[in-house]
């Protein structure tokens, strides 16, 4: 199920200034969004598997690129997440 505020966070972090602020203090930026405790902790833990079912795959990719995760690491975590949880269907 798409989570609006998680998606909004990832969308907002497409702005370079906002992404730089997040890299300096992730918790402070996340606190500005009314996320569920589960999603908040998943964001702060960079937990690809727990986040993937709740947002658009492109936004997920943009977020992990914005925080500096390499493509190779991101793809490895995605594959692990797909094996364990499945993902949002249809795009």
């Amino acid at each position, binding site marked *: 199920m798409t989570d609006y505020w998680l*998606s909004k966070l990832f969308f907002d972090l497409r702005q370079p200034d906002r992404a730089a602020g997040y890299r300096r203090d992730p918790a402070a930026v996340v606190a500005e969004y009314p996320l569920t405790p589960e999603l908040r902790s998943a964001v702060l833990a960079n937990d690809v598997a727990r986040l993937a079912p709740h947002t658009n795959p*492109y936004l997920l990719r943009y977020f992990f690129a914005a925080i500096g995760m390499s493509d190779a690491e991101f793809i490895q975590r*995605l594959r692990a997440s797909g094996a364990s949880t499945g*993902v949002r269907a249809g795009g």
Partner: protein
Amino acid sequence: MADLVGIYAASHGPLIARDWEKLPAPLKARLSAAFDELGRRLRAARVDVIVGVAPDHWTNFFLDNLPALCIGIGVEHDPPPEPFLADFAARHPTISGAPAFARHILATALACDFEPAHSHRLRLDHGLCLPLQRLGLEPLPAVVPILINELEPPMPSLGRCCDWGRLLREAIRSYAEPMRVALLATGGLSHSIGEPSMGAIDEAFDRRCLDAFAAGDQAKLLDVLEAGMPRAGNGAHEVRNWLVAHGAAGGRGFRCLDYIPAPEIYLGCAFAAWGT
């Protein structure tokens, strides 16, 4: 009246720009040759306006307001935000639109019971600007962007995208001013972004898809796409733009200029030209 002088398609994988220096020389040579050939054709066609059919990669639209299809009717558009297109953005701090022609497309659509969104100012991301950069068109023709939601389900049906192409053909034909118009569809073919299959390419799907576009039989084409797209990665949804081109060409088949299954750029990368 305006003339439709060319109909083309090109993939737009961002790694073509972001990772260019790291790509193997043979791949770079092949990508360059394909973009150069399309650029040569567009220059030879003396194009005044490019109708650019592409997705919006979360650049203009978000879940707050997500149009199925949006026509850019502005006097000008904003350049791409992606850092890997900074050179292009610096050369083109704005990109000219064709507002009167774009409004004619919008009016024609509404008169024919299509209900597009429209925007007076769009930011054109890598979906259009990566091909525009690589085509080497300087000066850049005016651009009328047509952005289709291909990233966030639900999306426009495949058949409707063909209908949009036919509508665009009619709108170009019925525009009173003399103008040379090309349609450039971008994106596709198989690729997967942010999914567990990220990086995978479905070469068998891509080849069936290219064969079906070349043959031009729409019913067969849609069957091939409906059957194969669920396993061709979320990026394959961008083939909707190619269907707009197919419709604009009156269902004639296209000629595939090159197909490059390129894992280095996570992309079944294809280039094509339709007869007009």
